[in-house]
């Protein structure tokens, strides 16, 4: 339990009264940062998988797949992440599915952001020009080959910047899991607040850390974009 481990960092009697040992609290917040990063990475992976399934489903030839994908996307975009998280954590156990806070968090975050990203996948695939599909037909490629070798490599590059934004939204949404008692950065900051009585330092620290993580994501995505854009000059207009 995080509160207990925090208690051992209380200032010892006799040594510097009224001074708070910040290093202990900082390590607590860093432990929370690890959980936040874990959630972000695992949630993003789930979101990515779901986004491709649902995004391709929405432009499928089969009406039933289109219908299912639309229902999923509208449902998860329509209800708030907060409600979904609470549903996963508090209601699913009554239906016989017990999830740990981490599982519930990854599930809710991944499915929620996946729904937004599915629309990105769909939009990017539709943005590839008709002539590319015609070229596929002319080269006698199968539908799968056409999608895999011609359409997706071009569409991925269109998706990437928006995926970056989605990942940042997911990072920000991870703070909500603190409300289902998962010890992420926000949760730990609240513990530090309640134990030290200091409010500015814990919250300013985690705001800074969240911002650094967001910057890292956006730099990472930009670097990936540059890497993937190589060799596509002249193909894209």
């Amino acid at each position, binding site marked *: 339990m995080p509160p207990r481990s925090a208690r051992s960092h209380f200032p010892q009697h006799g040594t510097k009264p009224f001074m708070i040992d910040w290093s202990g609290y900082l390590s607590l917040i860093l432990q929370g940062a690890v959980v936040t990063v874990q959630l972000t990475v695992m949630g993003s992976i789930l979101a990515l998988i779901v986004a491709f399934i649902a995004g391709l489903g929405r432009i499928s030839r089969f009406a039933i797949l289109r219908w299912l994908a639309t229902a999923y996307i*509208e449902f998860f975009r329509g209800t708030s992440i*907060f*409600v979904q998280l609470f*549903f996963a954590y*508090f209601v699913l156990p009554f239906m016989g599915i017990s999830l740990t806070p981490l599982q519930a968090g990854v599930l809710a975050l991944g499915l929620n952001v996946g729904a937004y990203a599915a629309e990105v996948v769909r939009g990017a695939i539709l943005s590839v020009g008709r002539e590319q599909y015609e070229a596929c037909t002319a080269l006698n490629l199968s539908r799968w080959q056409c999608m895999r070798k011609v359409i997706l490599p071009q569409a991925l590059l269109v998706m990437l910047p928006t995926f970056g934004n989605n990942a940042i939204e997911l990072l920000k949404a991870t703070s*909500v899991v603190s409300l289902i008692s998962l010890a992420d950065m926000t949760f730990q900051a609240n513990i530090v607040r309640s134990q030290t009585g200091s409010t500015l330092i814990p*919250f*300013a620290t985690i*705001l800074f850390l*969240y911002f650094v993580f967001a910057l890292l994501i956006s730099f990472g995505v930009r670097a990936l974009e540059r890497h993937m854009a190589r060799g596509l000059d002249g193909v894209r207009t």
Partner: protein
Amino acid sequence: MEWDWNFVWQIFPTLLQGVKITIIATLLGSVLAVFVGLAIALLRRSPNRLVSTTTGFIAEFIRGTPLLVQLYFIFYVLPDIGILLPPLVAGVIGLGLHYGTYTAEVYRAGIDNVPRGQWEAAKACNLTARQTWTRIILPQAIPPMMPALANYFIAMFKETPLLSAITVLELMNQAKSVANTYYRYIEPITLVGVFFLTISLISVVVLRWLEQRYGRIER
């Protein structure tokens, strides 16, 4: 555990009170976001480099950090410097500031979309900067922004449950307190979900209408 309609009717009035607060928070937050967004968009265009880069950085920072933490910041840190805000006010300020940084981007796109000729014409007619903005640029820039702005207000509406973390008694908080009292989670949480889904589905229709009426901004 089974779904119990009697329980649903029993908790319905309590949840409706929460709905009221949720709607109030969204409306006030939207109004604040409209003004904060405009202020940020205008400050970012300031000829003074210091003003524009500082505003840009602050907006970027607010957009890159979670709303929940910002709410905690407003609710817990500001009292230390003597600003004690009631929970709902703190929540509205948080929502307004956070979404103001998003609407600022909408304003930016809208303003950039006004053709250069309009700026030049305003100059040729010898209008002051103030007149140029209020009479020429903004009246043309704002209508195409309507759908995008509405989109962010819907997003804000879906984030109002976060206010429960700073003890605002909105819908989610009412649902949680009901659930904790009777130890039944299925009905309250599902009802909250249904409520948000209903409003979102209605708002999709409204958005389509706005897009038809005002068109969209070309990005």
